[in-house]
């Protein structure tokens, strides 16, 4: 159908939409970001799509479930009234936990976080992301895309800065789990290396080492700014990671 008569510009347009939707892998993300920068037509398309998505998100009221529909569905399938309204939630939660446990992530849910346990899950998040088909949940080189993506997923969206000038490209973000809380992680790229930058609010107890040290074979830098603790993890060399941390701190 449509694909048979798809032109190059048509394809480029679809990739811009996919870029804004965070559907591209890091390599394509960077490629499309460059195309947008070079082509005013694509930049205009990107601006339109972002404006439209923002309008839809902010203007349209959420669809309310009509009163009584849930009860009618319950009755229709014969879920007894005697079961308390919260019971399906509890069941859903227990199934969710079961799925997490069976997927091998037991470690995350059974260990309670203490200051010493803080670093481990952050490094593990980086490792897990490297093993996943895509190290990020939202792929975008645009801070204005990445930051809003976190809204609604975690209580506080992280500070997102553009470090292109310093050689560190933003490629996206994801939510990691530390203790029982979701925390925002930004992913930057330098050459072939990815840097995971996890931001944890109110983590005053976290020990700081403002220059890179090795944890399980990865370099780690930690610092605190504005009541937020930052942890940068990467397999890049310590000097570059220090440079990254410095660039992020200096970007104001």
């Amino acid at each position, binding site marked *: *159908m449509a694909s048979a008569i798809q032109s190059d510009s048509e394809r480029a347009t679809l990739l811009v939409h996919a870029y804004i*939707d965070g559907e591209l892998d890091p390599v394509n993300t960077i490629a499309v970001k460059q195309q947008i920068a070079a082509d005013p037509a694509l930049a205009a398309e990107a601006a*339109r799509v972002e404006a*439209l998505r923002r309008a*839809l998100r902010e203007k*349209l009221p959420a669809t309310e*479930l009509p009163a009584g529909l849930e009860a009618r*569905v319950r009755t229709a399938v014969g879920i007894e009234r005697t079961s308390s309204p919260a019971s399906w939630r509890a069941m*859903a939660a227990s199934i969710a936990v079961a799925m997490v446990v069976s997927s091998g992530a037991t470690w995350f849910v059974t260990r309670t976080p203490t200051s010493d346990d803080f670093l481990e899950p952050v490094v593990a998040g980086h490792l897990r992301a490297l093993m996943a088909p895509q190290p990020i949940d939202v792929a975008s080189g645009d801070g204005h895309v990445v930051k809003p993506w976190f809204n609604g997923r975690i209580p506080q969206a992280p500070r997102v800065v553009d470090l292109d000038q310093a050689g560190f490209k933003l490629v996206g973000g994801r939510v990691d789990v530390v203790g029982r809380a979701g925390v925002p992680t930004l992913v930057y790229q330098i050459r072939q290396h990815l840097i995971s930058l996890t931001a944890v609010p109110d983590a005053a107890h976290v020990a700081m080492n403002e220059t890179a040290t090795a944890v399980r074979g990865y370099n780690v830098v930690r610092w605190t700014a504005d009541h937020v603790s930052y942890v940068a993890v990467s397999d890049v060399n310590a000097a570059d990671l220090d440079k990254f941390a410095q660039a992020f701190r200096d970007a104001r």
Partner: protein
Amino acid sequence: MPADDDKTLFAAVVMPYLGDAYALARWMTGTRTDAEDVVQEASLRAFRAIRRYAGGNARAWVLTIVRNTALTWMAKSRPVGLVVVDDLAAVERRQLQSGNMDDWNSVVDPETEIIAKAEAARLETAIAALPSPFRETLVLRDLQGLDYREISQVTDAPIGTVMSRLARARQRLVETIRGAE
């Protein structure tokens, strides 16, 4: 598996997504009462098929059933409004030919401003006016937040088709909003 387990499974797999189910049905059918009927019917279908739920993405599974129910329901109650697949190919071709390539040279800022100023009622009308395959794709992505793979599953369309429908749906909305200004 005893029937009680079916109910437990239904409560865990389907009930959490009743809101999503209703929202999709609402956008697909266009009216509240139709949407309620579709959700009830889809719930029964889901309940009867609950043992076939093989784990994985429960929301996509539920929405797939809701969509199929809505399509059947719409075909039954008002066959005129339904866009069949052959028509769709024509719609997509028309869209391509009437593409807004010329407009791409226009200045960005006033245009995005017009979009930003669009009011809820205007957005809703514009969405409702989309051909249904475009509309469902846009609703699943931009209102319900499904990713391309999930939309592909729910609408039973290849990812490439999902991408082109989504792009055209958005371009159409922008044109409608701009045209109404």
